[in-house]
């Protein structure tokens, strides 16, 4: 089908999940000084979940490693990221 939900999109992508997260969100900073939560909207994999207390819950396992969250975040130090270990993470087959 042409129109798909986000879950259906994500099921077409292959991830080899590394043992340790390559992106770490410091929720204390989100709680203390962020009101816009840009990461929640821009992440193409929809991996950032806002919590009631203003914090951010993050799941690194289905990350495209695009870096958008880091660029969009306006809070110094809230998102720390690097690439996952060699051979791990997203593996595109056709794109």
């Amino acid at each position, binding site marked *: 089908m042409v129109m798909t939900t986000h879950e259906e999109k994500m*099921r077409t992508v*292959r*991830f*080899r999940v590394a*043992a340790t997260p390559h992106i770490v969100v410091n929720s204390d900073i989100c709680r203390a000084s962020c009101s816009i939560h840009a990461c929640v909207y821009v992440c193409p994999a929809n991996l950032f979940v806002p919590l009631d207390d203003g914090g951010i819950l993050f799941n690194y396992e289905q990350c495209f490693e695009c870096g958008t969250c880091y660029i969009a975040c306006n809070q110094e130090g809230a998102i720390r990221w690097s690439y996952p*270990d060699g051979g791990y993470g997203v*593996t595109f*087959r*056709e794109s």
Partner: protein
Amino acid sequence: MHIAVCLKHVPDPSTVEVDPLTGLLAEDRVLYMLNPADESALELALRLRPANGTVTALSVGPIEADALLREALAAGVERAARVWDAELGPLKPALTSILLAATLRVIGLPDLVLCGGHSADRGSGTVPALLAEQLDWPAVTDVTRFEITEGRALAQRRLARGARAESEVQLPAVLGLDTERIRLRQASLPKLMQAQHAPIPLYSLEALDLSPQDLHFPAMTLHEVMPPRPRARIMFAPDATASAQERVAQILSAGIAGKSGQKVEGGTPEQQADAIIDFLRQHGFLEQRIAS
């Protein structure tokens, strides 16, 4: 102590797509990986290896399987060997076990063979036992943990319905592992580079001194593979006239009520058979199809 580990390259389940029309695998979309249970077995073998011991990685498969043997070499095994022959058709557990046993005989029998208990693709879990049969060694399957002391393996096994058992066998032996997932260690850069172009010895049927008769194993034959087509079933739905509380209770019971049944009594045998078939149809055990 010399340990051999059997590795299989399997399709990553998240990349497997079956064409609904043809029932065939979309081959160009599949990515292969080291079978997770075998990855655990390999890492355990490396941890178990004593100072003067060796680990040999074996795989039966086409050239693509070299990738995972290189992975094993990079992680630190002493030796890798691949078994393949253009003559070979689709692999079945029995054939795989014959090839593995023959290879071990040619390259030197180890003291211990570790296998992942089940592969992510076929998953029959029979190779460890069949291999032990070929070698005439003891086998312990469904092993969750084990230790080796003084030439004996003491293994804990996971049995059906949560039962546990302990088995002790004399080495040499084959263990089929059903441990938790253990990740393979990360290879160092020098080892990764070294393994990248390391030659992987290939054992053909000729090298193993096997003839076509030797590959015959009186077992089942695969005639056809068909995609599963689930039958329509009657889903449980709560009684709409019941109170909310009763309906919640009904939903929570998932339709399971106490055993109930009806006796089919009287009438001719044909009528009795019809009554049973009707019952099965009504409850979704038989397709609601009227034979013409």
